[in-house]
Structure formats: C-alpha cells, structure tokens
C-alpha cells in the first residue's frame, strides 16, 4: 500500500492547483487550456470512483442482451472483453435485429441509455442535470 495522500487526494490537489493558481495567472488560450486540464483531472477522479460499478452494469446489460458470460477480472482484460461484446452488439444492430418496435428494442435502448448515462456521470453531469436525469 502506498502512503497517504490517496490517489483522490493527490488528484484533488493537482486540480485545485490548476483551477486556483494557474487559471487566474493566465489568460486567453492558455487559461482556456488550464481550465480544460483541471476538468480532465476532475473527470479522472470521478472515473476511478465509478469504474467498478459502471463496468458491472455494462456487463450485466450485455449479458441480458447477448447471453451470460463470466466477467473477466483485471482492467485491461475487462476492457477488451467489453469491446468484443459491443462489437457483437453493433453487428446485430446493423443487421436490423432491433429495427422494429419490440421488447428487444426496448431492452436495447434501455441498456445503451444506462451505459451512456454512466459515461456522462463521469464526463458531463450537467447534461443529465439539464434533462432531469440525475435522479
């Protein structure tokens, strides 16, 4: 185990440095980029916090649509497996399997919406807030 500060504490300190020190001390393009960088740090923090839960939800949704498979452990193996399964899902969509209004289409849309919602919880909560989708 590493000593304190934790990953989150470190990230927050970098974010605060960018936002409170660099942004006010710069202007124009550099200030804009400093703000973008601070936002990126905040994003990483939220991603780390939500990662396990979001991955489990996406996997369960893919199980429901494509049939159950054991979820691999380890971040890289999981990312590869999710990509392969999404490729399979995309192939089905392209083949027209979900074109007609049906229980399958409803399930597909609910799954894709849930996955995209999890992405936005990390990258842009304001989008969800504006749509009353923050719960």
């Amino acid at each position, binding site marked *: 185990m590493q000593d304190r500060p934790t990953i989150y504490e470190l990230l927050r300190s970098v974010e605060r440095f960018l936002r409170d020190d660099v942004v006010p001390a710069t202007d124009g393009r550099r200030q804009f980029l400093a703000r973008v960088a601070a936002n990126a740090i905040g994003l990483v923090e939220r991603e780390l916090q939500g990662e396990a839960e979001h991955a489990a939800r996406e996997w369960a949704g893919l199980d429901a649509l494509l049939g159950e498979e054991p979820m691999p452990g380890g971040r890289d193996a999981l990312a590869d497996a999710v990509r392969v399964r999404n490729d399979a899902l995309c192939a089905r969509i392209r083949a027209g399997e979900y074109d007609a209004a049906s229980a399958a289409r409803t399930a597909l849309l609910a799954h894709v919406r849930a*996955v995209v919602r999890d992405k936005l919880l990390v990258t842009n909560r*304001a989008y969800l807030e504006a749509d009353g989708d923050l719960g």
Partner: protein
Amino acid sequence: MKPDQIAARLTPFLERETGGPVSIANVRTMTGGATREAWSLDATVHEGDTPRELGLVLLIFRPGGQRAFSAHDEFRLLAATRAAGAPVPKPMFVGEEALGRPFYMMERLSGETIGRRLVREERFAEARRALPVQLAEALAAIHRVPLDGRDALDFLPRPEPGKPVVASELERLETMYRQITVEPHPAFEIAFRWLAERQPTSTDVALVHGDFRIGNVMVGEEGLRAVLDWELAHAGDPYEDLGWLCVRSWRFGVDHLPMGGIARREELFDAYARASGRPVDPDVVRFWEVYGNLRWGVFTLVQVRSFLEGLSQSVELASIGRRTAETEWELLNLIEGKGF
C-alpha cells in the same frame, strides 16, 4: 512562419495587387484551426496618392490535412455568397507563391464569436432577439447561390450522380465513421439505422454551409455581422443547415432554446420559410437534427484521432474524445422522442 517574414513577403505581393506602395503592420496570430493558420494584419495601400487602411485576416492553408477545396476555391465561394446577399467577410486577395503556401485575405470584422458568451451575456440580449430572423435570412441567401452556370462552384463536394442527396450524405458520414472509429458505439449504430429508415425524399440541391451554428457566426450587440468558417461547405439538402443549427452542442448549455441556445425551432422555421419561399417540414429538419448530432459525434472521433495517433498532445483534443457520449445521449433522446 514569423510575423516579420509574413510582412516582408506580403508587401511586394500587395504592391503588385494594388499597383501602389504598401506597408504592413500589426501582424498577429489568431486562433487557427487544424487545417489553416489565421493571422490578423493591417495594410496601408494607396489608391493613386490616397492612402487607405485595410484591416485584414490572412488564412494560410497548411499542407496535408483533410480539406475539400483550395484557398482559391474558398475565395470564390465567399465572393459568390456575398453576391447572393449573405453577410460574409469581403474576400480581398488570394495567392500562393508569395508565402510558398496557398493563402487568401479577407476583410477583418469585429464582433463576438464565442458561443458561451452569445447565449448568456446581457449585452447580447438584443442580438438574441434579432438573430433568429437574421440567421434564417442569411441561410436563405446562402441557399440561393447558383451552383452551376457561370462561375460555377464546381469544386464543392456534391451528391453522387444518380444517388439521392440524402442517401449520399448518409453514406458519406457512415463511411467516415467506419474509417475513423477505434471503438464500437452502439448508440451511433442505432442512429444510423434510424436515419436510414426515415430519409426524406428531398431532391432540392443547394449550397449548404455545412457548419452554420452559433460559434461560427460573428455577432455584434445589434445582431448578426458575418457568417464564417466555410470549410465544410458542399452541395446538398438545404434543410441540413437548419438541423445543424439546432444540434445540442451549439446551445452552450441553454437547452430549453433548441436553436443555438437563443430561440425555439419554430421561430427559425417560420423565418426561413418567409425568407426563402421554401416550406419547412419539421419532420425533415428533425431528420437533419438527428443527422447533425450524429455528425458532430463522428467529428469528435475524428478530432480525437490525431491525439490518439500522437500527432498532437493537446489536452483540448484529448478531452474532445470524452464529449462523444454527449452526442450519444442526445441521439437517444431524439430517437426516443424526448428532445423535441
């Protein structure tokens, strides 16, 4: 290129063009895009003995890069749209040898282009009232530009011969998506299917600006001053421009006003129908709005590619990769009937 190099090389060029002595000052870099450098400069030229001050924007086209047409073509395009009555910066000079790269110069206008400010700041309240009609009229003028005949704009990308205009656009976008994406995007696949099933039977082909939105127009406190950023212009369905103007990303957070964060869609439709004489079918524009959100989604993939491939280290480009989800979300809203 450095400011003093630009001044040194452009002075003899402008002297040839204007037939009199020229001096150049205040050469400054402006924010450029991926395909071009933008500079601001002041030139003093002479008409006979009378000096005249010109405030100019210089656009130098970078080598390589994805680009549909040349500096010379874009110069002609600006001249043609101006002649049709659209508010466009006046194109002034075009050349290549003087700078060793294709370039053109246009008049420099003042005003605000930053969308976030235009949709929110109190000083643009009057502009926001005027813009729906002004933008509709500008679009109507652009869509009137003759594509054929004398001074034909034959360099513009057009629908494939014999293929309907809508099918051509869809196919072009899907090809771009398949070439560029490194990851599967189920929401985009759903959107491509949705669009394929609902293609309007448009046959009308007009000059389409292709990137007509808040952020690409220059606005003063009184309203619209100029339409900028013509590099995505093409011959296509004029309603494409109306849909693009309503894409969620160009609302800059003011989501209850779908037309660029400043007006309801219906205000745009009514004003455009009056200005152009073309009826507006909301379902057709809805098609193009879905298409527009998908197109912006594909463009985010295009932009992040240069970061992923190591061509750029920009934190801005990197962050654009995480904006793709916004377009996926909006597409799901629109497809499920929640965004209209």
